[in-house]
């Protein structure tokens, strides 16, 4: 019970700090918009064509824009040695990690929920046909990105070339989650519900989330304290 409260405190702290400054979320939203526009030059914009690549397009936008938020997650604590204070605080590392992960999850999800209708308008796609299942995929995929991004944000916070190293290290690890989310999203945007041929992707996505949440919780103390 106390653990849940500590997680909640960290989450609220991070969200409050972000909503007051809006430094990461504005940059991330702007970046998502830019990539969405750039993609319109890269691909054929027939309705059929866009439906086929919609999953890939959306998740690349989410992964790129999400990295901007995840990069700031621990970097925000560097000025005034806030990170040292957080590590020295009498809370377990796993609570700190989960709190930050939840805050990042909310922020990345917010960027995604704004990007989706913009995608629908720009590319003339009816993306709401399978809305509940699409939201489920969005939640699972985003948690996968967030949990990997948060632990690696902690890992890269103190090193040289932080902004380059984070995507360089996280994208290859995220491949299974991105692949699954892309396949499911393409099918759902085209209006096909999750069936026997796509349900294995859903299971893979859940497995990815569970495995990496567990591994991160075990290793986060080592990453933070050294």
């Amino acid at each position, binding site marked *: 019970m106390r653990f849940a409260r500590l997680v909640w405190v960290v989450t609220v702290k991070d969200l409050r700090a972000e909503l007051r400054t809006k430094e990461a979320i504005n940059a991330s939203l702007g970046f998502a918009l830019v990539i969405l526009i750039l993609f319109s030059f890269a691909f054929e914009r027939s309705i059929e064509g866009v439906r086929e690549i919609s999953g890939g397009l959306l998740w690349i936008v989410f992964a790129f824009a999400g990295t901007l938020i995840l990069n700031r997650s621990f970097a925000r604590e560097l000025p005034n040695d806030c990170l040292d204070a957080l590590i020295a605080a009498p809370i377990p590392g796993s609570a700190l990690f989960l709190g930050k992960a939840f805050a990042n999850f909310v922020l990345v999800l917010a960027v995604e929920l704004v990007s989706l209708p913009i995608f629908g308008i720009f590319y003339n796609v009816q993306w709401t046909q399978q809305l509940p299942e699409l939201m489920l995929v969005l939640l699972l995929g985003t948690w996968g990105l967030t949990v990997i991004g948060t632990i690696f944000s902690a890992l890269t916070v103190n090193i040289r*070339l932080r902004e380059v*190293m984070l995507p360089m290290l996280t994208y290859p690890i995220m491949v299974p989650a991105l692949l699954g989310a892309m396949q499911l999203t393409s099918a759902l945007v085209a209006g096909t519900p999750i069936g026997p041929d796509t349900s294995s992707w859903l299971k893979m996505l859940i497995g990815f989330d569970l495995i990496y949440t567990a591994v991160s919780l075990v290793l986060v103390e080592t990453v933070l304290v050294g």
Partner: protein
Amino acid sequence: MRDKILYGIGAIALAIIVRNLLVMTTLPEEAQQGAIFKIIFFHVPVAMTAMMCAAAALIASVLFLITRNFKYDSLAVSVTEVGLAFLAANLVTGSIWGRVIWGVWWVWDARLTSALICWLLYAGYLMLRHAIEEPTQRATFAAVFSIFAFIDVPIVFFSIKWWRTQHPQPVFWGGGSFPPDWFAVFMWNWLAMVLLGILLTAVRLRQENAQREIDSLRRMAHAL
């Protein structure tokens, strides 16, 4: 003493490879693919050696996190570098085979893609090490990343397998068959590659230890 052992391992590996090359020229050409099929004698053994290196890197990384003994960190980085070289050899030989049989250097098939992502992950491991100055932090973070990378490899493999597969089914566990004399050459070649891997790791390990000693001497000189 240790030098002699290393020279011995190298000589044995070289002798086996020379012998295998001679035997390979006497083997008949494969019915459908012709001479290029014989690349399997290198393609698969280097892949298996690379996998052994990845497993060794995981064990060394976990041992470092438990004991905090830097000799395990040195072992982890040495064996990762050697494994990366073997995996690169695997990708290159596979690409040559693909050019002859498929007509293209590369296809986005399950095995090819997962091998490439695996290569990228371990290349990321080396880049991460380069970006961290402080030895303890470098060793700790690299060990954590190695664990993440190792867990990712099977997930990547199975997820991409569902995506698409074009690679031939494995000869040994996929229902194919190999004549006994071919199998013997194959296993000998694997042994040669493993010995080569051990040799390279030992050489790299020595270099890593020397580097560590130089660093500590330099720090001592600065302190004085």
